[in-house]
């Protein structure tokens, strides 16, 4: 009896803890009544989407969002162009190299962005001064930062479909490696490409550390400045970003679960 009671209490507290901050932010975004004036008379006044329009019409928001979207697209492109052929090649031709790859991806997880960025700022500014002036060059660090997640997703899927056996079978019927890659591997690893892309979208759109410390005006960095001047519109923007992130990741996870693949957000 007490057990059931305690269990219920635990869940209720936990759900409140996770939901209340979101609701509070939504109120600031949707209602224009200041908190100190909030009482039974004003509770239902001033609701509307006007703050969202303020956020969406701000030229800085548009500009920084475009930059963040470009970075996302480039990171996905870089990851797919470099990592997919490499992982496939290692799985089929050189499985011996796998521990090396795993070790290398763990390395990029071990050095936290806030530490890496100090090194990057120190070394690149001296050796290639022009490199850090372009915001789009953040792509390389983002691709690297996502490597533990993307590599594992790809590697797991390639093993699951038995890429090595497939390759032998394809060879014996006279299939060229290029045809094999495009006709057999790519269609079969679609779901892991999908989860990798979703993770990249969700992470890069919210990435703050690199961009902020290297003084690049990506969307999260701009959001911070924006929120200090337009408090409520800032909340509205944060709310939109949060819901979008949640939807993208939630859909990806749900889709994977349907196929019976377990999602590992830890990358370890």
């Amino acid at each position, binding site marked *: 009896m007490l057990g059931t009671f305690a269990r219920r209490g635990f869940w209720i507290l936990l759900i409140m803890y996770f939901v209340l901050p979101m609701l509070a932010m939504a109120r600031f975004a949707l209602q224009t009544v200041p908190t100190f004036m909030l009482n039974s008379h004003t509770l239902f006044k001033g609701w509307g989407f006007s703050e969202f329009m303020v956020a969406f019409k701000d030229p800085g928001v548009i500009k920084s969002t475009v930059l963040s979207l470009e970075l996302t697209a480039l990171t996905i492109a870089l990851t797919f162009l470099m990592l997919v052929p490499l992982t496939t090649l290692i799985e089929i031709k050189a499985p011996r190299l796998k521990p090396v790859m795993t070790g290398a991806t763990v390395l990029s997880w*071990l050095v936290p962005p806030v530490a890496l960025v*100090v*090194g990057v700022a120190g*070394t690149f500014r001296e050796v290639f001064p022009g490199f850090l002036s372009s915001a789009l060059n953040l792509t*390389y660090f983002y691709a690297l930062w996502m490597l533990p997640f993307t590599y594992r997703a790809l590697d797991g899927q390639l093993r699951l479909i038995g890429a090595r056996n497939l390759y032998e079978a394809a060879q014996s019927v006279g299939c060229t490696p290029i045809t094999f890659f495009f006709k057999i591997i790519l269609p079969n690893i679609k779901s892991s490409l999908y989860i990798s892309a979703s993770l990249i979208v969700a992470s890069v759109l919210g990435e703050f550390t690199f961009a902020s410390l290297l003084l690049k005006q990506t969307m999260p960095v701009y959001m911070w400045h924006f*929120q200090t001047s337009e408090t409520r519109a800032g*909340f509205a923007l944060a*709310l939109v970003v949060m819901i979008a992130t949640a939807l993208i990741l939630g859909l990806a996870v749900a889709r994977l679960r349907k196929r019976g693949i*377990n999602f*590992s957000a830890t990358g370890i």
Partner: protein
Amino acid sequence: MALFLVWPTISVIARAFIHDGSFSFFNMNRAITGTYRDSFIVTAKLSFITSILGAFIGLVMAILLRRLPVESRARTLADSWSAVASQLGGLPLAFAFVALVGTQGILTRVLKTMGYNLADHGFTLTGMMGWTIVYLYFQIPLMFLIMTPAISALKDTWFESATSMGASSARFWRSVGMPILMPTILTGFVLLFVNAFSAYATAYALSTGAGQLIPLQIRFILQGNVITGENELGYAIVAWTLILLVLSLVAVTLLQRRVSKWTESA
């Protein structure tokens, strides 16, 4: 990889040991004295507290949900939500808590009308308690995600054989469940610790850019690098951070070996 990761990292560590053009521990010493020493302690304390609490609550969540079938709606919801929340960190999360318990927050206001003033009781979002509450938002789901696979690997038959020999549920967890889960719990704890220690965006947004936590100290030094020599101090702080993180990983690997020996002999 070598260019964008290994080279910058090594160069930071190397530069941390250089002062006036020659090898010295001057900066490494400076990075762990005075205010920087306090920063390390505060950050480690925060990471430790949120890892312990996060690990515990995440573990309880995973254990309670174990009995539900994988396809059930509650499981799907918990899994998907955790995947999302563990990645949420950053600005929006900090904003959400400001909206709830900041000085103009809803809950602050509600509690005030009920005669309870949060600020009078020493609660601010820029203090240890405030940070802890915000950090737990991503720590708990992360632990849940780490523990779920390990817990579903516990076989129902073990539980049944334990109870058929007269063991209570608590006894089962103490003698069978926990020892088996221990390595995963330890790994989870360290992942949480590292996660909290290097959380930058949340810390930044909560303390308006200037604060005691290590990631913010690194920022402060990096941005104020007009003063010559301060750069080196930044490198030293980063080097110490990396040393600390690597040490905690090594410690956990050793502990895990210990634990797996216990389980083997038991």
